[in-house]
């Protein structure tokens, strides 16, 4: 049985943080290996999705990795403004994760 599940119900962590002053990195860490593997299979979370959610060009998504040992998906994008520079909105980059919370997964029980 497949139903649409909010990603919030499938994870322990969804966070954003600076990776150095010029990059912003997102971690989506799933509850367990089984959940992680199921979500990976759906191929919903991709580089393209990240670009779409943050409405940036795909070239600005610098890394996209599925890290099995942590049951986690990581994506890193170019920071719109380098950390602490003029035009900064979030020095630590820790509050940029909200668009990820709206992800829905067609989850197979």
């Amino acid at each position, binding site marked *: 049985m497949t139903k649409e599940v909010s990603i919030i119900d499938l994870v*322990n962590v969804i966070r954003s943080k600076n990776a150095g002053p*010029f990059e912003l990195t997102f971690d989506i860490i799933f509850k367990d290996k089984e959940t992680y593997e199921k979500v990976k299979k759906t191929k919903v979370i991709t580089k393209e999705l990240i670009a779409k959610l943050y409405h940036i060009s795909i070239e600005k998504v610098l890394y996209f990795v599925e890290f099995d040992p942590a049951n986690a998906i990581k994506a890193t994008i170019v920071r719109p403004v380098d950390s*602490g520079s003029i035009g900064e909105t979030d020095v*630590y980059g820790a509050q940029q994760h909200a*668009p990820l919370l709206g992800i829905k997964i067609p989850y197979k029980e």
Partner: protein
Amino acid sequence: MKEIRVLSPVGMLGYGFPVKSFQKGLEKKPHVIAADAGSTDAGPHKLGAGVGIVSKEATKKDLTLMLTAGCENKIPVIIGSAGGSGAEVHLNWTSEIVKEIAKEKNLHFKMALIHAEVEKDYLKNKLAEGKIKPLGPVSELTPKDIEEATRIVGVMGVHSHIKALELGAEVILAGRSNDPAMFAALPIREGYNPGLALHMGKILECGAMASTPGTTSDCMMAYLREDYFIVEPTNPMRKCIPSTVAAHTLYEKSSPLHIIGPEGITDVTECKFEQYSERAVKVSGSILKKSKIINIKLEGASKVAYRTICIAGLRDPIMIRQIDECEKHVRDTVFTYFNDISTEDYKLLFHIYGKNGVMGTLEPQKEITSYELCLILEVVAKNQELANIICAFARSTLLHYSYKGRIATAGNLAFPYAPSDIPTGAVYKFNIHHLVEVDDPDELFSIEIVKV
């Protein structure tokens, strides 16, 4: 069985840690006590202005516990990225605190100071030799960048820490260091697997963050053996589980598979994270791919402007609906009024909380649903006086603007403070974030031995 034990009392020197946790860690007889005192996290201002991230009192408190324990137990104490940004002024600041503590507690030890601040002429030569390249999405370095930076540091690896240990240092105060270096130095010197040592260092540098409930303000102990290491928080209320340790390997890094540092790339693709005991996790499989060329990261900050802000609340729904138009009106009015000043000399920014204050251009939500907005009007300009003048003008323009349909004619903004305009001083930017190729790290990082 061959084993080396490393105690990390806290994720950031000055954040504080429970004395009980620290004592529990000491009971396990660590071979070294180490802590990371710095970060680029807090922005370029700390490096640019030469100030610290945490207070003197907080730093002194943490250091007192660590130094007295180090002296009593005859264990080396290693602090990296001293003072936050790890330049000369930060190193000196920390060194003064250490001397104060030594005097108060009657401690005597051999201290190594490892300098990380880089000379501009040296870098200009390196640049001319073509030995400097960008790190990350930044442009090529120019001599102007070097000149404009208020201070520049190199990020040292284990090499310099090991050298200090070999010189007999009992306390090491290092300038800007790669996060794992303080923790990995002694193990690598003793012949342990460098990939494991560096990975272990990456976990320890945040204190007990890689545990649950995680925090940087508590202690983490690591036991490094031949083919694996074990991490365990010393506070019994916390435990490491495979997911917390694996997740920490991802933290703050662009890619989780490779941890890049001056020693090379630590490949964690084949890593295994296993529950070793109730509160400890075993990590194996981290491999260091040593780089043939030594590349040292450079961090530099330059002063770019002076800033004045004004905080104001908006509560009128008729105005809130038209906030974009109000912003445009203020911008146009400022531009016209100050038409004798070049637009290169100032910038006007609107931070509108309730619209896109937190995410700025990344905000996907297009509709304002708040009944209240917080506006931070910001002006950055070439000097403080100009920033003050423009901010005052923009503020009064917005305060009195007769937007379409206005019926609340007494004033558009709610200021929490008088004066409403707040000069906040100099603004900095990381203008150097590059790699410099060196033949020997010693050319960048000099070691000074001091008898305390």
